[in-house]
């Protein structure tokens, strides 16, 4: 150990074992500074105050057992080396810990001071190496990202020129064209459009790699996005005489997903499907629920193309993958579309996979999480297995001012959301994703775990923030209301999940009431109604 007075955090509940470890530590080095705690919770709070040189960790503590113990420590202090102190019969668990990021393990009662010192030194050195590798990888990704951002900007400028003047000629602004000239210009335009989307993909794929793609999930009616995607792809399907249809099961509750990213994923899959399906074929988008899975909606894009070989199926989502057997004379593209799609789905917590029969067609299926009020609310209304004392609901209804109907509504909604988020205390309150009502406004719900007094302060803060915003003031009107929620009392034998579920129902009902009051009884309101029925496991 190179530094002065190395600080060791020992998390061990057995006083005998703790004393023994302390003794071994002092034997190997007299200046070592050992702090010993006997609960995981105490250990975690020490870790947030100060980073020790190494953590010595017993896995079976009064407040945590087994794999959970090391996972919590690793996620609390990812850069700190951990050595597990394992029982005689627990080596298997200790090995598992090593596989998941713990640096080493020692079997209790089976090591002397030299072995302990050696394990600790190696743990620290390995951890330092990992940290530095990680850092250089991050720097490299950062560089790659900046480089591509720069390159794509520089590529776009001449591309814009090509696009601009090609369309000027095609639109006859520079004079009449004959048929052949028109055909050639259309070829230029098509190619420049391809180039444009490749530049976009390149940037997007780099972002995905460096974890820079962000999503803004909200309650989303799946059918709407699917319809939007279909209507955007209709023209290119018709051009190839390919049938393009959608079948969305009725009764799918809203999903919790980013609308633009979901659209992007769907468009990527549809583009591929149309590209690899011969004329007179068909492409079908389906959305449904699956009996065995209450948490996700299943969306598939199936085509009647020539199918994908089993080998290709394993590789198809990898970066830069292109089908080597492609006999298609159309251009292959960069091989980034499916990679980006998979990353987008992953960011939502969903999965994507492919099924295919050679000669018959291919179906890509992905899942998106169903919106669950209970899941979003749980961290706010229950803390460490106990319900909070009081919960209040603040509703903010935002509607565009009629006089500026072109206004900046698309900017105002995210801004309102951002302002609301800046008002709350993150570990106590939450801003739910906005609900759209049919009169064109948005309903924002803030759930605050605070009492009558606290919620008044919060409401005042929100009001001031919204009134302060120049854009919101000129573009829209807002109404703020606060309700204190009557929390259901906990019946005997009722789990915290069940209570959370009931609170979620109360809040859903409050939201529905608001949407009804603004003169809306359409499917969206019913959809919220469905939310409370979705199960939370």
């Amino acid at each position, binding site marked *: 150990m190179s530094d002065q007075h190395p600080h060791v955090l020992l998390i061990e509940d057995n006083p005998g074992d703790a004393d023994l470890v302390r003794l071994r530590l002092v034997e190997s080095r007299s200046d070592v500074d050992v702090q010993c705690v006997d609960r995981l919770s105490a250990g975690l709070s020490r870790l947030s105050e100060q980073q020790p040189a190494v953590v010595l960790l017993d896995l079976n503590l009064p407040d945590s057992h087994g794999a959970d113990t090391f996972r919590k420590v690793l996620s609390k202090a990812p850069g700190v080396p951990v050595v597990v102190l394992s029982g005689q019969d627990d080596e298997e668990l200790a090995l598992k810990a090593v596989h998941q990021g713990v640096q080493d393990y020692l079997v209790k009662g089976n090591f002397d001071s030299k072995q302990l010192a050696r394990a600790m030194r190696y743990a620290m050195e390995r951890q330092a190496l990992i940290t530095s590798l990680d850092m250089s990888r991050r720097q490299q990704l950062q560089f790659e990202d900046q480089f591509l*951002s720069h390159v*794509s*900007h*520089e590529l*776009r*400028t001449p*591309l*814009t*020129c*090509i*696009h*601009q*003047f090609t*369309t*000027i000629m095609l*639109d006859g*602004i*520079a004079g009449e064209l004959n048929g052949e000239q028109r055909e050639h210009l259309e070829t230029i335009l098509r190619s*420049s459009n391809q180039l*444009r989307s490749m530049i976009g993909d390149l*940037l997007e794929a780099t*972002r995905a790699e460096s974890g820079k793609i962000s999503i803004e999930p909200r309650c989303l009616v799946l059918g709407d996005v699917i319809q939007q995607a279909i209507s955007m792809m209709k023209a290119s399907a018709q051009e190839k005489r390919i049938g393009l249809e959608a079948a969305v099961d009725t009764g799918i509750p809203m999903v919790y997903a980013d609308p633009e990213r979901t659209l992007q994923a769907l468009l990527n899959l549809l583009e591929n499907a149309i590209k690899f399906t011969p004329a007179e074929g068909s492409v079908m988008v389906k959305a449904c629920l699956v009996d065995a899975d209450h948490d996700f909606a299943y969306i598939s894009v199936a085509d009647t193309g020539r199918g994908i070989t089993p080998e290709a199926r394993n590789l198809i989502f990898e970066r830069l993958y292109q089908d080597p057997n492609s006999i298609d004379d159309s251009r292959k593209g960069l091989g980034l579309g499916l990679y980006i799609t998979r990353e987008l789905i992953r960011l939502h917590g969903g999965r994507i996979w492919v099924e295919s029969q050679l000669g018959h067609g291919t179906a890509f299926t992905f899942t998106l999480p169903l919106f669950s009020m209970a899941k979003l609310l749980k961290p706010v209304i229950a803390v460490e297995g106990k319900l909070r004392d009081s919960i209040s609901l603040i509703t903010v209804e935002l509607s565009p001012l009629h*006089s*500026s*109907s*072109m*206004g*900046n*509504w*698309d*900017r105002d909604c*995210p801004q309102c959301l951002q302002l609301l988020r800046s008002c709350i205390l993150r570990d106590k309150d939450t801003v739910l994703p906005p609900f759209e009502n049919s009169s064109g406004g948005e309903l924002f719900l803030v759930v605050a775990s605070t009492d009558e007094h606290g919620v008044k302060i919060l409401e005042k803060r929100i009001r001031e923030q919204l009134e302060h915003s120049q854009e919101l003031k000129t573009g829209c009107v807002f109404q703020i209301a606060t309700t204190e929620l009557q929390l259901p009392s906990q019946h005997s034998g009722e789990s915290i999940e069940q209570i959370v579920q009931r609170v979620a129902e109360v809040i859903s009902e409050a939201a529905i009431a608001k949407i009804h009051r603004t003169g809306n009884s359409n499917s969206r309101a019913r959809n919220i109604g469905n939310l409370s029925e979705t199960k939370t496991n």
Partner: protein
Amino acid sequence: MSTKPKILIVDDDPDLRKGLNLRLRANHYETSYATDGFSAIAMAQKERPDLIILDIGLPAGDGFVVLDRLQQSAALSAIPVIVLTARDPQFNRERTLQAGATAFLQKPADNSELLNVIRATLNPAWPGTAGAS
């Protein structure tokens, strides 16, 4: 007096200026142009355009500086600005809208999209599209 709406094009690339100029004139707009941030403000003061189409990467005061100056000026702050740039929307869309732009479009923009946004910006009663980008 001309009834054609006046659009000020601010871009440092001569080819892009020329192309945009041709396109806008073909759609019955009157145009003027500036090639850097400094002259953009001067032209805005002199011409009092109905709309400004603004690039971000400009010499002598970039697009953000221009937006800021326009906002500061009582006479010019009401002129709507459409930002048309090759820069990345992920880092620039929010920022330009916060700085006072009416819409953000990335180059190369579809002509129909650009013209729709221009129409909607010039005519607030136009149903629909502005800010959609």
